[in-house]
């Protein structure tokens, strides 16, 4: 059986991670390549990098980071943030990323999913979705709406309908981020995750709200997610990937235990 994947997420701005990991010796390291290697050795199954560099001119720095990460770790990793065109996708994939994720660019121009899938294969194209709970309505029948700009702009699109459409267009995976849960450390949005996961045929990575290993157990069972994104709970040394995996393994959830 497939293992459920545990995926640390690193935000990178102008070539430096915005949250340094507290290593055991308590030294903050802001180098994404070193952090990637740290997580690779710590048992992460995959990594996600988000480039939050604001200036377009400085985006080449990220390509250099991707190239260096690819030489340092031998597990899959994806890169998102600022991907607007197929050419952007190509550069990231050629630099060595396994997958590329599109979020707001796909909301504005859904065809980019189809173009990316055609050029590189569906397995390379991840749809990132930022979602907020709203009142159910004719326009938003699931009660979950697509938002962009960190949750500030409501797009009038139903999250479930968008997920199904993206799958149709050729997305190979969905990274589902609950803006409501994000940063709370009170657990993933289980109802949302289950809703999307049971209705699409592609894997779903749950994101937003992880605070304890139990939260991962919940989203990987009740939420029916295929993978769980984590950030601060391991970046700051509260838990190690091994502790989380041991916890899940004890609960009978299949995870990769040898690395």
């Amino acid at each position, binding site marked *: 059986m497939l293992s459920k994947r545990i995926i640390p997420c690193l935000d990178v701005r102008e070539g430096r991670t915005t949250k340094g990991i507290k290593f055991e010796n308590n030294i903050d390291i802001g180098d994404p390549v070193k952090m990637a290697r740290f997580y690779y050795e710590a048992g992460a199954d995959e990594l996600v990098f988000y480039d939050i560099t604001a200036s377009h001119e400085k985006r080449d720095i990220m390509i250099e980071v991707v190239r260096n990460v690819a030489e340092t770790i031998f597990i899959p990793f994806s890169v998102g943030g600022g991907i607007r065109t197929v050419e952007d996708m190509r550069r990231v*994939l050629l630099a060595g990323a396994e997958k590329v994720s599109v979020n707001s660019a796909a909301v504005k121009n859904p065809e980019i999913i189809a173009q990316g899938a055609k050029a590189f294969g569906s397995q390379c194209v991840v749809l990132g979705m930022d979602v907020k709970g709203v009142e159910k309505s004719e326009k938003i029948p699931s009660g979950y709406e697509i938002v962009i700009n960190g949750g500030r702009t409501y797009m009038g699109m139903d999250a479930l309908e968008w997920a199904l459409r993206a799958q149709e267009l050729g997305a190979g995976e969905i990274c589902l981020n609950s803006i409501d849960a994000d940063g709370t450390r009170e657990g993933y949005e289980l109802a949302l995750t289950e809703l999307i996961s049971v209705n699409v045929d592609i894997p779903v990575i749950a994101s937003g709200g992880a605070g304890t290993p139990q939260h991962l157990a919940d989203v990987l069972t009740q939420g029916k997610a295929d993978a769980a994104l984590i950030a601060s709970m391991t970046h700051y040394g509260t838990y190690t990937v091994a502790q989380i995996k041991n916890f899940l393994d004890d609960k009978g959830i299949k995870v990769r235990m040898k690395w």
Partner: protein
Amino acid sequence: MIAIIDYDAGNLTSVARAVNHIGYECTVTKEKQIIESADRVIFPGVGAAGSAMESLRRLGLDEVISRVYRSGKPLLGICLGTQVIVSASEEDGGTECLGLIEGKTRAFAHKLKDNAGNGLKIPHMGWNRVRVEKAHPVLKGIGERDEFYFVHGYYPDPADAENVLGRTEYGITFTSILGKDNLIATQFHPEKSGTSGLNLLKNFCEWKPC
């Protein structure tokens, strides 16, 4: 020198990086002469069987791969490379393949279910175990706790169980490692499978088939 065959089937630099990382020199190439004069050859690839076979024939590499196999040099197939070493594939409405090992590449049936009755997603993507069916120098050190990274909607099904070296469970039991003589081929990506995958690649780089 290890040659990694480039036939326009995806980005092959990750295989090269992994081989370099474990201390071996390699070159990603579509040059027939370089491939045929290499000490060992890796045949990777991502994509669909139909266009892969088309590219191989166009570049004349289908014959080169057969010659490499017959020469007795160590040859490693990965993912799509593995799927096209058998006789034929169900993909793209039926594709005639290289036929180095008799068998067929089949599509996973949709509606596969796990033991708990949950529907399984296709492609089979992520980390899974391999049950080694037959000891092999390239599989040295690989046990039941090792996991490998898979991404595929089709799987090789060799006609002769003699050629099955490893099997994996995903709704069904399928062949995830096959081999014959100096050829070994994995459905998973050793170059993306952490230390377990690097171990397998290292074994391949040191393998001396008799």
